[in-house]
């Protein structure tokens, strides 16, 4: 059971989460839900990177004087890379919400069908 999880199971569940986020972006016609689903996809990607840094028998990456071997600590490199990615995701969410407000101001709705109808009426 544990061996199956370590070799395939966790990767498969992460991939499933990514797939659910992608399906949400395709299926939902509301732009705000698309933004939320984009954040879900991003969590899946961050989790995948953190998976690669896990170590059996390692502690959190804060150095103590009694332990000096590299095998005692979890790999800190993916943590550092993903921490900045999470913070930058706040900036991208802000830009997305600003564009959302702009679309609402221009078309009066954030449903995809309404916007396509308005565009057809103009032509």
């Amino acid at each position: 059971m544990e061996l199956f999880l370590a070799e395939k199971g966790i990767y498969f569940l992460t991939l499933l989460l990514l797939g659910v986020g992608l399906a949400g972006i395709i299926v939902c016609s509301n732009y705000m839900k698309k933004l939320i689903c984009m954040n879900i996809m991003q969590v899946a990607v961050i989790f995948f990177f953190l998976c690669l840094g896990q170590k059996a028998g390692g502690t959190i990456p804060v150095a103590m004087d009694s332990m000096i071997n590299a095998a005692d600590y979890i790999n800190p490199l993916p943590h550092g890379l993903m921490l900045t990615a999470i913070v930058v995701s706040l900036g991208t969410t802000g830009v997305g919400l600003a564009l959302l407000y702009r679309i609402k101001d221009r078309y009066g709705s954030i449903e995809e069908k309404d916007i396509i109808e308005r565009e057809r009426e103009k032509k």
Partner: protein
Amino acid sequence: MQILSLEAILLISLIVIALVIIFVDDLMTAVVVYCAFSFITMFLYIVMGAPDVAFTEAVIGVLSTIFFIMILRSIKRKTK
């Protein structure tokens, strides 16, 4: 290695919450459920041994939920 079983349980609950976000009608419900999503994500990061990332996710999850709710005051809550 019981950690992997715990991770699998948390991941399955994340997938269920993501399905709820996709199929719910009310946008306010979707945003609040997204807050729960980021909360469980924080637990997942703690279990994996990344407390720095979990700390950041806890603060940023709250902030992005507040941004969503701010915009929600000026658009319709119901989806088609």
